[in-house]
């Protein structure tokens, strides 16, 4: 028994006049619901795991705005109705796997029946525009429960705080230069992303170590993994990790070219690629792996139901 992927959708802002984190997440969520043949009112829980936004809104949770935009259980709570519970989860590129773990548990308990996870990142207005280490993208996936033995069954998350300074980001106040005048901004909070040399190499080291430990805990070898869904998808991470783990290229879910460089949406982009190619339905065991700041490595095992390959 496990949490089954009902649908996954990832998209970029290609062709849009202006990309915002909310619009990207809205579009991904709506595409995902359409793929699954579900309505917004079916969503019991909506977790937004995106990080970088154009406005850096502090509250409410962006998830609440997305819930309103897609029309999930709005209006006054009637007796006998069913609501949606929305919040944001922040764990960088590992956020999607953290959210999957939480929703899988709540599906198992029967507290929710359909969970949505949405993500999006846009350029957070860095001092040097266009230097964000990711491409604007949005993603969404839906999880339901499966009694047949398929779905997400096992999770792990590990941190390597000795490398916590290799990648850090945050808002830093910058005073406006020049004469101060009433009604003029005194300054602005500037997003600063500090990525140091060696970060991606250490990501590979940590991801390899955590993946081996996870599989050992499950009594599995890397040869039993039919499909690897890794994030981030940048070649300096992905190719090195694949070689270190000894996973052949035909067992890796490579994302579509336009989604290469997606940040928190990376794991969903990988799942979308795996679903579209039919390989997720064919693979007996799929390993999702995400590595990011912290250094944090998150892992999830997705099992196919016993029997012939299924479509997803």
């Amino acid at each position, binding site marked *: 028994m496990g949490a089954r992927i009902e649908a996954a959708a990832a998209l970029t802002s290609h062709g849009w006049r202006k990309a915002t984190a909310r619009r990207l997440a809205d579009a991904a969520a709506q595409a995902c619901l359409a793929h699954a043949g579900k309505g917004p009112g079916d969503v019991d829980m909506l977790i937004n795991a995106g990080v970088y936004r154009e406005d850096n809104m502090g509250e409410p949770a962006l998830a*609440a705005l997305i819930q309103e935009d897609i029309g999930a259980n709005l209006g006054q709570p009637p007796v006998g109705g*069913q609501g949606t*519970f929305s919040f944001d*989860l*922040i764990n960088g590129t590992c956020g999607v796997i953290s959210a999957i773990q939480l929703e899988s548990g709540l599906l*198992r*308990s029967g507290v*929710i029946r359909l969970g949505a996870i949405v993500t999006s990142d846009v350029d957070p207005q860095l001092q040097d525009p266009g230097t964000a280490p990711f491409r604007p993208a949005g993603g969404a996936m839906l999880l339901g429960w499966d009694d047949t033995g398929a779905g997400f069954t096992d999770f792990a998350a590990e941190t390597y705080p000795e490398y916590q300074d290799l990648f850090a980001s945050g808002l830093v*106040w910058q005073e406006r230069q020049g004469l101060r005048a009433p009604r003029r901004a005194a300054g602005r909070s500037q997003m600063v992303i500090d990525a140091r040399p060696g970060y991606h190499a250490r990501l590979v080291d940590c991801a390899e170590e955590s993946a081996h430990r996870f599989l050992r805990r499950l009594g599995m070898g890397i040869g039993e993994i039919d499909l690897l869904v890794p994030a981030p998808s940048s070649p300096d991470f992905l190719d090195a990790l694949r070689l270190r783990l000894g996973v052949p290229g035909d067992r890796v879910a490579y994302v579509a070219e336009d989604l290469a460089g997606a940040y928190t949406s990376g794991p969903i982009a990988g799942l979308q690629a795996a679903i579209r190619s039919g390989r997720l339905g064919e693979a007996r065991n799929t390993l999702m792996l995400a590595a990011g*700041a912290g250094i944090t490595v998150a892992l999830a095992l997705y099992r196919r139901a016993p029997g012939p390959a299924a479509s997803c």
Partner: protein
Amino acid sequence: MAGTGSGRHPDHWLALQSPGSGSPWGCRIESVGVKLPGQRLTTRELMSQTSHRTRIQLERLTGIHERHVVGPGESSFTLATGAARDCLAHSQHQAPDIEMLISTSITRSRGRCSQSFEPPLSLYVKQAIGAAQAVNFDLSNACAGMLTGVFLLQDLITRGEISCGMVVSGEYISHLSWNAARQIRSVFSKQLASLTLGDAGAAVIVERAPKGGGIEVIGFTTLAEHSRLCLAFPSTVGPGGQMYTKSRTLQKVAIEDMAPLVAEVIGEAGIDLDDIDYLIPHQTSARAIRTGTEAFARRLGARPKHVVVNLEEYGNTSSTTLFVALHKYLQEGRIRKGDRVMLLALASGIEIGMAIFTIDSQVDHYGRTH
């Protein structure tokens, strides 16, 4: 098809957890910790700093006499870490026992960053307190963040996936007050609520309890039709943020919509509202709490025995208010063993969350005996 646990009741608007037949364990609040900055700021002092002559009688309107505010070297991180340490000091657990740590503050200041994004603040907190092996992530759900964390840990604990977790929040949020003070002109300003804020850190440890014990019911929902009634962004007036709140509409909606949700929760617990010994609501203003309580009483035909208001000395400490209040009442011996407590979170979104539990041996670790 739903999972194997207690199952979602079709009549519930809330996502609800209660000790169902499928859960092998209960989940209890084991300890609560608080970290308050040493520096205090009275409402009179704050209002004397406004750029415009506002004529706002803030203390009379809100019941807030003073609030704690951070001093040099303090941040969301130091408040969260201090609260986590205080929580451990009141706990039977050691830091290595914590299997999951969730940081839930709206503000995430640390070092030179007024708001950190990566790595998550929870990583730094778990390192600072020695909970290195805990799985960690941050969560953002406005003022309902801490109770949201408890909701998530409850599921992991009652299913037996973990046995002990911590939710922590460090709110250095008084910069919103200073930024509002520079711009506010009258009582009708959308920044009025920013003047009520105070700084505080809070932490709570939840642990495995015998089946049927611990938290009787916990539930959450998001009334997203009203998601834009309170919005906060980075400020251009000064460091930190600015918040714009349609306070009257928010209060009206909360009173209208919350009553049936309270009825759901107390119905799930199989009790009446007057079986609640202490209702601890989100602390916004004394007047709003009084109005809300009266509305519940009218609609539900009963009222809790006591309604906790601690605004006078803390103000609105955002995501920490419920646990700052619970800690104070435990510390002062006002809540006693056997008392039934209801926590009621109300936050931008609109997020509404509630938890009902009975005080047990955790009370032994507070007050003069500690």
